[in-house]
């Protein structure tokens, strides 16, 4: 169940990635449309993070290639932004919230140039968008996990990219914040940006995403939510964890399902 699109914003061709000769992603071949909120779903160890790291060139694939905006990755880096997993950095780093968000503007500034008023305003606007404007001068070591995650999202927003890749941005983020940020992401995609999110919660995935990629070492599905979100695909992706799956598919059948009401 793989839907290919015309004029894709991202095209992955026959991608295989291995660590120490052990392939962790096999023959992923997909294309994604612009202006969509795209979710990557799959069980632990399915290669979700590996896929987005390979898209950004942080991991060299064993075979295959990635094209973004129909160009090789190195030509379009300024238009791509990344929200890494929160644990990937040391939060004891001596920086304030504003310092970290300003880092998002460094790519466009170029070598030797320093951020000025324009960059600062952009950073403040981004912090406001994630509801962190009360924490501008707070040291990052004094933030909670969810707040750190929001700082990372603000940093990506400050980059003003066209394609956003987010690796589990909602880990440790509370429900109301998650909904608020999802709404923000929907506004961004409505404005023509493309957002790809590695996500764990099938319930909220069904509510917010337009397009789904399901992954379990192989690509199981890639397509519009309505076509992809069914029992067969979920079973293929998550294997035999039936208890959960029947509950989820029951919920899919209830047409006006809203995870926030229950």
């Amino acid at each position, binding site marked *: 169940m793989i839907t290919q699109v015309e004029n894709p914003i991202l095209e992955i061709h026959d991608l295989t990635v291995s660590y120490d000769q052990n392939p962790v992603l096999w023959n992923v071949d997909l294309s994604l449309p612009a202006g969509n909120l795209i979710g990557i779903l799959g069980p632990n160890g399915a290669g979700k993070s590996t896929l987005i790291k390979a898209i950004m060139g942080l991991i060299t694939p064993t075979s295959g290639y990635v094209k973004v905006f129909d160009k090789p990755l190195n030509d379009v880096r*300024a238009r791509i932004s990344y929200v890494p997993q929160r644990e990937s950095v040391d939060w004891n780093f*001596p920086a304030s919230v504003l310092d970290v968000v300003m880092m998002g503007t460094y790519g466009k500034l170029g070598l030797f140039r320093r951020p000025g008023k324009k960059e600062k305003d952009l950073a403040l606007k981004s912090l406001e968008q994630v509801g962190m404007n009360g924490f501008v001068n*707070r040291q990052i070591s004094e933030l909670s996990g969810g707040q750190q995650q929001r700082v990372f999202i603000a940093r990506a927003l400050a980059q003003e990219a066209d394609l956003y890749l987010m690796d589990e941005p909602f880990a440790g983020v509370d429900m109301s914040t998650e909904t608020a940020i999802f709404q923000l992401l929907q506004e961004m995609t409505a404005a023509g940006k493309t957002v790809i999110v590695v996500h764990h919660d099938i319930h909220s995935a069904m509510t917010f995403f337009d397009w789904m990629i399901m992954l379990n070492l192989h690509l199981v599905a890639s397509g519009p939510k309505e076509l992809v979100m069914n029992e067969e695909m979920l079973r293929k992706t998550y294997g035999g964890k039936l208890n959960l799956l029947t509950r989820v598919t029951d919920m899919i059948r209830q047409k006006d399902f809203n995870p926030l009401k229950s």
Partner: protein
Amino acid sequence: MTFDSNAFLIIFTGSLIAISCGFLGVFMMLRKMSMTGDAISHAVLPGIVIGYFVSGSQRSLEVIIGAGLLGILATLMIDWLRKKARVQLDASIGITFTLLFAIGIILINLLAYKVDLDQECVLYGEIAYLPIDSWITKSGLNLGPRITWLAGLNFFFVSGFIYLLFKELTLTSFDENFSSVMGIPSKGVNLALMSIVSYTTVSSFESVGAILVVALLVVPPATAFLWTKSLMPLLKLTAGLGISISVLGYYLAYWIDSSIAGMMVTVAGGLFGISVLIHSKKPSWLRGTSSVKEPFGV
């Protein structure tokens, strides 16, 4: 009290070296690479010997280039062992610098009849001889102590490097992957930092030696990091500590008639110890700002 120009020169040179090392040390510490600085300071030995052998002078450009190349080689080797051979970071540092240092010792012995150099002169410098080692031009003009000029030049390079690449250094220290995604060459920034650490190490050899230069790279930044959690104050405090270390180290060494460089590092260790003691008591004004909870509204 009369103005003692020798004392001033020694303290001034000591401060320049301590500040240069401290500035680089801050970024090494933030990259969790403090011990890589240690490795570099030892690994440059074969480069110095070869440079000396090629040029026939201990003070030539070849020595600095040789040391710089070996410093980069050490960095690449540590990185390769860690990433490709899957050796732990501390083990790969231990393997790399002892191996390169050993090669340096063998080279010194092999070339001993041609090279007026021994391990002692690399391991232990002597800043007290600085005022009698003047830089005299061919026409006989005395321009003052050579080591002070070297330290000044080094300070100029280090400050310029950090000033120009401040945002790149900060970003790659904090989040290397993010900077790579944006197209900032994190590997290039890293190698540039390692080269300038090698250069600083070499240019500080004659005054403080390879062992004590490591202390100046590690101890002042670590002390300053106990007191502040922002980058600019951290750099300023490190510089301040560098100056205090030089002043206190000189006068204490003068007082008990001992090694100045040794005393400088002892003072650095002492200041660190005091900072740790004060911090373990945790007075209320050091606990940072209190966290104010605010509701989330978008």
